[in-house]
């Protein structure tokens, strides 16, 4: 049996319309506590910094987000140990440790990471030289947020899905076994 695997959100580009509701919801959910983002747009005082990124090709589109790789190149590339694996095997960026070196961005084969400004208390954090603090921003599967991944919840087209391969593999293997059983007579 394979290792217990981390979960991730996967989009079905056949359903995605590219509305960015996922990006906005992601931002809203992650900034309720520290940046006083409430229900409405008017409560936002900082730049929208999502953790997944709508990507358009000529024919279709979808948000790209972290796969929570089992041997995560971003985690391996991070010299500051600002990327860690939590108890649920999710790959998480500790933005307070990130120095914005961009190694993880280069390492990630999916383009799931962007370097974006960091805000606290409703304002963008500034460094000594008044430049804004920036950190790697990527999907954390809404760890610690009630209701699970916000992107999945808000998608108007149900294009996003939380993938738990552990369960799916099991279901698939049972289905395969059943079909073998069914076909044993023929």
């Amino acid at each position: 049996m394979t290792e217990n695997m981390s979960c991730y959100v996967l989009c079905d580009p056949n359903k995605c319309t590219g509305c960015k509701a996922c990006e906005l919801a992601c931002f809203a959910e992650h900034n309720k506590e520290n940046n006083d983002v409430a229900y409405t747009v008017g409560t936002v005082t900082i730049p929208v910094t999502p953790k997944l990124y709508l990507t358009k090709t000529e024919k279709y589109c979808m948000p790209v987000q972290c796969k929570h790789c089992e041997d995560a190149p971003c985690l391996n590339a991070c010299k500051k140990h600002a990327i860690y694996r939590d108890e649920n095997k999710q790959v998480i960026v500790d933005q307070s440790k990130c120095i914005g070196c961009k190694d993880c961005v280069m390492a990630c084969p999916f383009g799931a990471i962007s370097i974006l400004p960091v805000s606290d208390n409703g304002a963008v954090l500034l460094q000594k030289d008044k430049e804004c603090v920036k950190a790697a921003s990527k999907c954390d599967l809404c760890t610690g947020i009630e209701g699970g991944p916000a992107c999945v919840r808000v998608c108007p087209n149900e294009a996003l899905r939380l993938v738990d391969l552990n369960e799916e593999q099991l279901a698939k293997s049972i289905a395969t076994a059943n079909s073998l059983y069914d076909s044993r007579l023929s």
Partner: protein
Amino acid sequence: MMRVVEIDKNICTGCRECAKVCPAYAIEGEQGQPQTINVDKCVMCGQCVQKCKSYVSIVSHGYEAYEKVKKERGIPDSVTEPLFAAHNVTHIEEVKKALADPTKVVMASAAPAVRTGLAEEFGYKLGTLSDGKMAAAFRALGFDYIYDVNFAADLTIMEEGSELIERVTTGKGKLPMFTSCCPAWVTFCERNYPELTDHLSSCKSPQQMQGAVQKTFGAEINGLKKKDIFNVSVMPCTCKEYECSREEMKASGERDIDVVITTRELAWLIKDAGIDFKKLKDEKYDNPLGDFTGAAEIFGVTGGVMEAALRTGYELITKKSIPAVEIPAVRGGEGFRSADIKVGDLTLRVGVVSGLKHVVQVMEDLKAGKMKDYHFIEVMTCPVGCVSGGGQPKLLMDTDKELAYKNRTGITYKMDESLPQRKSHDNPSIKKIYKDYLKAPLGEKSHHLLHTHYVKGRAKTIND
């Protein structure tokens, strides 16, 4: 041409989620390509503005794009919230200019639904009432008179109720009569059912009544010249900006409403002035044009105009007190519902349309002669009435929509319950204005100031 609702081509991702909510099928474009609004179809309801999530992003548009877009749209620097592809054109700078102009007497008046949403923009729970805080905010912003469109809502009931009674009892005028306070609906009707515009009540919307009264009666009682008065209307609606610019809306001789801003823009104005909304103490509206009843407040929700009209209509017809002020039969959500209401010997068959898409079947039935039993039909373009209007605070997550509508509606009815007068004709200031100025509903002055006519087939352009 006047621009009311627009889609910014540079920001639109072409998701066409807006097209799904557009009741007028006005949004055109290929999937995945920037969309355009067909102005010949658009009713300016702003539901696309509410729906759009395609924001100006530092990731896809860069760091400078946000400030650039803000500047292009004439949004104050102080605004920090995300900006989206679909947006309504703001007139906030005109309001700021008027407030800063010492020669102008600036009068504020806000629609009933505004006070159910405004607080959300300051971090309050969905559907927190901010009636008193809003009055205080207007005062802090430097408005000279803090009036209220709710006053005109009561006035509307007087006029529209009387008109209904007249149509029902004398046979003068077409039945069923349709409400005319929703400008998006009126525009839709003029465009698509020109032959049926006679069914519309000739009453102006509360906003326009309020404007006309402020610049005439209001000028008189306050010793002002109407040309010095600058009327600012705050609306949960994007179409109201268009409504106030219609040629017919100059009963006072001037433009009756000078500028309309939305609930969201009022929040910008408050933030721009550095007012700490949370710290504001409740204040009162100015008399007499700021007095209102519970009947006026429920204009903000679907079925509210109907319910308010019935409360007054019942008593005007029967000369008796209505047995139950609340009429749950006309309350509800999106769609079309009808009810038979006993008014003395009369049974009024009424209908309520919530969501403009649902009006099409009604109108087709009307054309087919299937609506003969109906006396009065209320039409609201937005899903659950003005509380869900295109100018209301925009939700970051549409999963909160249901809760927002429920709470805003709930607080509207709660406010109605809490008010001393709940029937428009009980409003003392209404009584006073008829006594001192208008004389009687449907009278000559009313006809001039408070009623309008419709342009059949107002079709081709918004600002013809």
